[in-house]
């Protein structure tokens, strides 16, 4: 990468959100978690979503991850209208287009790394041979080529999150959606995971990072702040420290 300090011209629009809202009914009262968010995310962006708790950050993440549909507004994923999709169509979108990385890793405890990573491919209907090949490749890509037969309880926290990242990558999704990916890790291991995400970004992946930590968000090239269910700010960010580390 010749000059990664300057934001690169990004690719086509992957996520196109216009004025979406989300209301929850909590007993008697209606909680308006999102009050009209408009957002465009392009291919090969590295975006951080920040905001205090109650800002609508988690709700927005659920929308972006197609885990939930908005109450109103327009949401297009690669040109397809997500807002109108039923459960199974959403499942298919999640399977093919989105790679999730969770704070708590969410690995199947009794399955090996390989089987954990194979899971999205099973749901995609891939044959066992190609499945194993792809999953092994993904594990090798995150530096766990020698841990494919280990179960989660035989791995360190950082290694578990790497398995989860391999699982997110394995179906070659349009976006990787990482929700507080370092939240359960010590800061050194957290940095390793962030370096891995940086590496993925450089290899052309689109990454959306949801976090409340400024240090973590600082790895992204663009940061949006949410407050009270609306976008408070949306800015290109640039952190020289990170760039020197990554470039070395």
């Amino acid at each position: 990468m010749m000059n990664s300090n300057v934001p690169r011209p990004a690719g086509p629009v992957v996520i196109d959100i216009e004025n979406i809202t989300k209301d929850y009914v909590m007993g008697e009262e209606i909680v308006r978690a999102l009050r009209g968010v408009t957002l465009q995310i392009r291919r090969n962006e590295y975006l951080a979503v920040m905001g205090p708790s109650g800002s609508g950050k988690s709700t927005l993440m659920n929308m972006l991850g197609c885990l939930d549909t908005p109450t109103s507004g327009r949401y297009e994923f690669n040109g397809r209208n997500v807002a109108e999709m039923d459960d199974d169509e959403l499942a298919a979108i999640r399977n093919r287009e989105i790679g999730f990385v969770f704070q708590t890793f969410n690995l199947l405890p009794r399955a090996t790394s390989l089987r954990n990573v194979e899971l999205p491919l099973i749901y995609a209907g891939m044959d066992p041979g190609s499945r194993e090949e792809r999953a092994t490749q993904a594990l090798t890509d995150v530096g766990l080529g020698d841990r494919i037969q280990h179960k989660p309880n035989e791995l360190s926290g950082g290694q578990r999150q790497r398995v989860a990242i391999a699982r997110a990558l394995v179906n070659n999704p349009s976006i990787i959606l990482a929700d507080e990916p370092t939240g359960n890790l010590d800061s050194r291991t957290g940095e390793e995971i962030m370096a891995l995400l940086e590496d993925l970004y450089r290899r052309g992946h689109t990454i959306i990072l949801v976090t409340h930590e400024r240090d973590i968000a600082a790895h992204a090239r663009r940061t949006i702040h949410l407050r009270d269910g609306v976008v408070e700010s949306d800015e290109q960010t640039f952190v020289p420290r990170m760039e020197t580390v990554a470039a070395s």
Partner: protein
Amino acid sequence: MKRFLYELEESWKIAVAQMRSNLTRSILTALGVVIGIVAVTLMGTAISGIQVGFDKSMAIFGDDVLYVGQWPWRQVNDWWNYRDRKKIKAEYADSLNRMMAATANSNLTIAIPTSSVTRNVKYGDSEVGNVFIRGTVADYIITSTFDFKEGRFFNEIESRSGAQVCVIGYDVANALFPSTSPIDKSVMIGGQPFRVIGTITRQGTFLGLFSLDAIVVMPLPAFQKYFTAKSEAEVLVKVKDKTKLPEAKDELAGLMRRVRGLPPEAKDDFSINEQQALKSTLDPIKNTIAMAGLFITGLSLFVGAIGIMNITFVSVKERTKEIGTRKALGARRRTILLQFLIESTALCLLGGFIGLTFAYFMCFGIGKAFPSFPIQFSFGLVVASMIVSVVTGLVSGFAPAWTASRLDPVTALRYE
């Protein structure tokens, strides 16, 4: 389709892993199904045992033999109409045979007289009570299903001359001659000596009600000489073509009316019986017993199924977060539904398999301990109980699996 197979395989692996990691719980839950399957299977073997015994009992009558008697072989509500009928006489057989010979294209081949009483049979100091003594002719062997363990049936000459010879059943032979051969020994029946010329192989019981082996068969003239008083006679008529049984029955009724000299307006004063009629009388009774038995034992399987349902609900609850993760990774509702259905089915299959193994050994043991107990373990039963296990698993797993498949991914992911 392929995807479905991969998901099936994956679900199966998870189910096995799940059972392994919760071994105690799985075994306890499966125990309910084990008990249910043992109960249902044993009932099944008993029912098919009864069926076999029933068919065997029925076979004794032969499906090509008509029985002319005073009473019909069915329950009658107007017994008084039958009670005063004239007795059937053994001599009718001769008249019938003559008329049959004179009829062109007769559907009947031969009429055989039989007459019977119950008496004690003695040999030395041993005595057997309530033995069925039957007098008949040499041709009786045509209609019977006997096999001889030793010796032979009496021949035409012995039959006509009224020789004091007899053929004895298994029980009689066993009781009177436990260690020696009865052939050519003389047994005492009604104070008269009869030389044993043959013993019949074991016939078992009739519907488990009475033994078919406590029997002595002798030539009719000898029988009539000593036992005519209070004897009941019956004429057996063999049919040429058993597919034309109704025609044969009509023909025989006509002949009997001639023998009895009945005017055209008079009702029959005899009954013509056959195996099929008896069978259709007894079949509903047998079937009712079978249904009731299966229903009652089925209840225990039902209790087992509730256990499975309960544990599957627990499993869904415990793994809510896992369900959320799977949904996030692209599992559809159907996939989750399938996964939990397979888990409950796998538990039921495990229970079914263990239960079947138990049932097999129990059948084996019962068969060894009580050889006469009607029990029949069959391949069909294995298949049936496996099908029952799978169906139980599917039915009991459906409600929890459905709940799991409907979980909202956001809520499920957040569940702790």
